[in-house]
């Protein structure tokens, strides 16, 4: 008898629950939407197609790096070396390019250098049991140093035709860096969600000992994670180097680590690992991208931009529902 009365309440509850689920899982998307709508209102230019493409283009480099950072942070680690490694990869790539004249060799060099530095990071973390923060801090100093040393502190430019086409061509209306970013995002998404490797990454980040006792080769997985992330840095380095057809050993990649980490955390990945999603990172990257774009569009004083960025990062994170 009480049934008809209960029904609506039940339904409401169900809706409630679903909403709260969406909120928990996707609060970053909501934050993104709010920022997006606010931006459209604040600046009429914002919604123009070319501007939206600009934003995507601008986030593609940090975006690719943030994908690797997501994997690392899911596994419970962190990588402070990405910016320096980007500069190192860029420098060695251009050197290889100019020496060999072959774009193919340049790309192979880039991937090899990124993979190798990533491997070293992973080795230090997994085998030598150095805290990821300190291991990659060391790598950050070392990689920048080698980049400066090999290029005498300056910047070097590609001398081979066609290399700059990598980043400066379009597929339809979409510029290739955006396309590469999208492709990498899909790959990392599949890797994390659909394969056993991805499962292990989450397991290690959540409970390393439990993962170990389940027979997972924690060390190898960690090394693989850092190596893959290093290769994603290589991809980012290729995009960046090819876009300007040059790389600066001193200024390229400065502070990219902070942007990438911020994007990952805004995207809802937990600092200590085990929880988070690639999709969150994508929106985290976009939030930062829109923010930079808007501050330029609105000509905000450069002195105050740091303040605005800091504030938005914190609001976006507070916004995430806590358990």
């Amino acid at each position, binding site marked *: 008898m009480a049934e008809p009365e209960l029904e609506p309440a039940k339904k409401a509850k169900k809706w409630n629950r679903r909403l709260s689920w969406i909120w928990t899982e996707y609060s970053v998307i909501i934050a993104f939407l709010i920022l997006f709508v606010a931006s459209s209102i604040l600046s009429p230019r914002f919604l123009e197609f070319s501007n939206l493409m600009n934003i995507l283009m601008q986030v593609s480099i940090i975006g690719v790096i943030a994908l690797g950072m997501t994997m690392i942070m899911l596994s419970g680690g962190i990588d402070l070396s990405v910016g320096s490694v980007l500069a190192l990869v860029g420098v060695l790539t251009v050197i290889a390019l100019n020496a060999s004249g072959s774009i193919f060799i340049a790309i192979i060099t880039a991937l090899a250098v990124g993979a190798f530095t990533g491997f070293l990071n992973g080795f230090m973390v997994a085998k030598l049991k150095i805290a990821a923060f300190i291991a990659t801090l060391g790598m950050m100093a070392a990689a920048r140093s080698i980049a400066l040393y090999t290029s005498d*502190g300056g910047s070097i430019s590609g001398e081979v035709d066609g290399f700059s086409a990598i980043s400066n061509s379009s597929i339809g209306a979409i510029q290739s860096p955006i396309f590469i970013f999208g492709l990498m995002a899909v790959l990392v998404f599949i890797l994390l969600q659909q394969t056993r490797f991805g499962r292990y990454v989450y397991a290690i980040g959540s409970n390393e000992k439990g993962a170990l006792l389940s027979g997972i080769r924690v060390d190898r997985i960690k090394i693989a994670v850092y190596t893959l992330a290093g290769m994603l840095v290589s991809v980012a380095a290729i995009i960046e180097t090819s876009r300007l057809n040059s790389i600066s050993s001193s200024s390229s990649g400065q502070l990219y680590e902070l942007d990438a980490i911020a994007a990952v955390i805004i995207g809802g990945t937990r600092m200590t690992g085990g929880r988070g999603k690639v999709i969150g990172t994508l929106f985290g990257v976009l939030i930062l991208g829109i923010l930079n774009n808007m501050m330029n569009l609105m000509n905000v004083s450069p002195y105050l931009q740091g303040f605005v960025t800091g504030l938005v990062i914190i609001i976006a994170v507070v916004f995430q529902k806590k358990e």
Partner: protein
Amino acid sequence: GDEEATGEGEDGEGTEDSDLTIGISLPSATHGWMGALIDHAETEANEISENKGIDYVMTNAEDPNEQANDVDDLISQDVDALVLLPIESAALTPAGQNVADADIPLVVVDRELENDAADVVVTGDNEGIGYNAGQYLIDQLDGEGDVVEITGPPNSVTEQRSAGFEEAIEDEGGIEVVASQDGDFSTETSLDVMQNVLQAQDNIDAVYTQDDGMAFGVLQAIEEAGREDVQYITGAGGETETYEHIEDEDSLITATFLYPPFMSEEGIRLAADLAQGEDPEEEEVLLEATEVTDENADEHYEDASF
């Protein structure tokens, strides 16, 4: 007299009279111009050490305090002359005083100290860059137009280059700075920033950048956007690539204003002289922010080295 003073202590064995050392305290290479400056300094110091047998010790610092530390280290090493490029003028002023107090000849490069501790000052003209660029754009635009400023990251160099520019255009009512954004002395950042600025501004007649590297990023953004309204981009510094652009008729980069990284060479040469006990010929070497356009680019091409 100086030499005897520094020769005290027990480092007597094997010491020769010509066993002189120059201390060099520079910021670390966080952008291209500084990287080039350090490179010039190192090359010149090596050359002097080969030719004249004068050793050198170079330090690099991230922040003023670390640099003050470096200077203390160099003083306690009894260097015979010191070349200093202060990260911040005010902050390194006491350190400069310490050098003077220790009777070590001091050459200050790029930025002046706030006291007279320096024996010689070798500087470029940061305000001049801004001022000359302003004058140049006023001339080119006939005193009227919309200008975008791409600045360096917030610091005193940026401040001076902005102030000079402001001063120049102040008198000309017709020039309006429609946007002023931070390009971080980086080509990549400037590209991104300029893309966004182009989005926001319908009409831009010229772009004043505070660094050649940033001019390249700005140029690429304009070309990609296919914008026809922009007619002039100016740089600062004097990179080889900039001269190529200036000589190229089609390039929008039409002028740059010298701020040569080889000023460190000059500083080290002077320090070597001072270390050998010579008196400086002049107390101030001002490397002017000479305007370089297609008219005089070939004259300067030789000197460009980064």
